[in-house]
């Protein structure tokens, strides 16, 4: 819209006034969209009625009747369809959070490795990225699952996975911590320790900015985060125990193997999905990290080198902080991708929100309602991600100025 047309002009008749026209066309647009939506909704309802398909969300409170292999919340025989859906939602969060954490670490390592001076390291990293990025994820998930089932000893045997636990075809069994009454004090201590560690690092930064003196804030922080809760834990009389998995090797065949409910188990469906998601997403993260590092002006590295800093320090203190600005926005969208890709879980029977929601859909027959609920979940993930990205970009462009 130009300034000329915004000037009041008595010569232009009402209908030719661009302002009036724009308002009218917008009104028509809104009207059409509203009418379109109305038609869509009434049409759907009408069709469901015509086909005699029950509709509405009342079904969510009926008993589900089926079981789910993994659940973080109580899920028993009286559990409702809604609860089954929630179980799925939590399972999605679970694999997404663990997956994002591991994919980030692996992605950064591989991204840096690709830029390594060592020919072997950079080659290996390149081959890994090129191969895994180009194999469809669904295939990778299924292959990982088959490999896991094939390599693991059967239910009545187990092999130990160094430092993590024991593995057989029913999953990877490890110890779990059981909190007793009074553990909340330690919980608070963890919170306080985290805040303290953050304060220390802020203080150390400020001091370094002002005086140039360094302070080992990482180690200090680590000490606080581990030490303080431990101290409080013992001081309050150790309210909690570590429960190890229990392996039964005698008695009827069916009772042998790891005892259900004792210790903690990563089921093979979860592990296969996790491996596939992490290995696949890490290839993209590696490329983002590589691009981010390459985007940092070479002069920065040279200048830091001229100051006599070591290579590792240059990478950590000079290059990565600047690269982060380029890395974080696409990284966020990889996190979103990983979360969305986790919906392929149903192929191997991991009950994520798509899988559990799908079972509810099928058993209840309420397709439209369930699809809406699942869509809302993924839409929320997308919106939250884009809100974060907008916020981050705004913050970064301010700093640049």
């Amino acid at each position, binding site marked *: 819209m130009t300034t000329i047309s915004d000037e009041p002009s008595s010569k232009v008749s009402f209908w030719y006034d661009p302002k009036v026209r724009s308002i009218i066309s917008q009104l028509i*647009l809104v009207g059409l969209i509203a009418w379109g939506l109305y038609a869509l909704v009434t*049409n759907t309802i009408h069709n469901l009625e015509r086909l005699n398909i029950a509709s509405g969300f009342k079904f969510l409170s009926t008993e589900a009747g089926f*079981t789910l292999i993994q659940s973080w919340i109580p899920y028993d025989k009286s559990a409702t369809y809604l609860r089954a859906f929630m179980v799925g939602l939590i399972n999605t969060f679970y694999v997404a959070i663990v997956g994002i954490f591991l994919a980030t670490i692996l992605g950064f390592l591989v991204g840096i490795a690709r830029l390594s001076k060592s020919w072997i390291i950079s080659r290996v990293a390149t081959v890994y990225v090129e191969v895994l990025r180009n194999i469809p994820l669904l295939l990778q998930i299924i292959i990982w699952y088959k490999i896991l089932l094939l390599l693991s000893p059967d239910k009545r045997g187990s092999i130990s996975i160094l430092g993590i636990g024991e593995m057989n075809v*029913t999953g990877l069994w490890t110890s779990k911590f059981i909190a007793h009454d009074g553990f909340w004090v330690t919980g608070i201590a963890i919170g306080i320790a985290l805040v303290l560690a953050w304060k220390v690092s802020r203080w150390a930064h400020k001091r370094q900015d002002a005086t140039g003196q360094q302070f080992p804030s990482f180690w200090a922080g680590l000490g606080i985060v581990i030490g303080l809760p431990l101290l409080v834990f013992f001081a309050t009389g150790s309210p909690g125990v570590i429960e190890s998995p229990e392996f039964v090797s005698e008695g009827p065949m*069916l009772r042998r193997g790891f005892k259900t409910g004792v210790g903690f188990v990563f089921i*093979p469906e979860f592990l296969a999905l996790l491996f596939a998601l992490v290995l696949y997403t890490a290839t993209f993260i590696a490329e983002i990290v590589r691009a981010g590092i390459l985007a940092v002006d070479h002069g920065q590295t040279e200048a830091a080198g001229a100051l006599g800093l070591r290579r590792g320090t240059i990478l950590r203190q000079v290059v990565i902080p600047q690269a982060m600005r380029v890395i974080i926005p696409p990284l966020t969208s990889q996190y979103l991708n990983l979360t969305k890709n986790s919906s392929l879980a149903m192929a191997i029977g991991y009950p994520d929100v798509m899988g559990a929601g799908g*079972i509810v859909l099928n058993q209840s027959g309420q397709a439209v309602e369930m699809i809406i609920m699942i869509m809302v979940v993924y839409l929320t993930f997308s919106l939250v991600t884009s809100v974060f990205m907008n916020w981050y970009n705004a913050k970064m462009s301010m700093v640049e100025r």
Partner: protein
Amino acid sequence: MKKTLLAIGLGTAVSMAAATAAYAGTLDDVKSKGHIQCGVSQGLPGFSNADAQGNWTGLDVDVCRAMAAAIFGDATKVKYTPLSSKERFTALQSGEIDVLSRNTTWTATRDTALGLNFAGVNYYDGQGFMVRKSLGVTSALQLGGAAVCTNTGTTTELNVADYFRANNMKFEVVAFEKSDEVVGAYDKGRCDVYTTDQSGLFAQRLKLSNVNDHIVLPEIISKEPLGPVVRQGDDQWFNLVRWTHNAMLNAEEMGITSANVDEMLKSKNPAVLRFVGKEGSFGENLGLKNDWAYNIIKQVGNYSESFERNVGPKTPLGIARGLNALWSKGGIQYAPPIR
């Protein structure tokens, strides 16, 4: 302006969708497109299974072939849509298929809340268990603590939960959408038990790496009447499916087979003459030609022929007629008369 155009486009698209959703009789629809779109399984030997050339065979497939024979006089005028247990009802509701003939259990929920109608029972089944012989288990009541593999979106996953809970046994269900995943996981030892319709156990067993290491336990824990399904609200189409199945049963009862049906045209028996369309107007009442039943038997055969060819004792499945014998022979297959 662009936006306005877009909105108008959207509006028209929506109203057009509304127009095409208007109802057409399935039979007219099928006649005009020249084939039946038949929803089947993704591969269940004996019931619906495709060979390397993509030719489908099986007891459930024969229902669709018989319908095509009745409508077009040509049993090959069928196109198949393989569906997982989870996809099947949506495919039928949305009109993607004309009939679902896929070892589907007739239940109250499906018959009412899902807007579907079961047109008959072409196989009376029940849910069973299969285990490795090495477990030393001889009864389902010894299965406490077992991990059980099965399909999602089935009556099976509901029954198994009911059964273990009712008998106070601990259990864990590993459920997959695709049967190949279920069988694969069971085969690799992820589960101690594989449960599904007993007919399915006999069929899927053939896919295991070592068939003889497994046994089917004696318990049958549910009623699984399997049959073809159509959408509610189209009685003409419903009648056609129902009477196609009834025709195959009646033919068996009257001794009409694909081999002798031509001679039957000259029969003296009025019931036979009605059947083959020499008397009465039973085909016309269904919206078909009067030789509809003749064509079914000529091209597909009667129920017994279909059973023996696909799942009977001489096939790899080796299933006895049992409940599926005619009512006059100790079973419960019973068709109302054509008259």
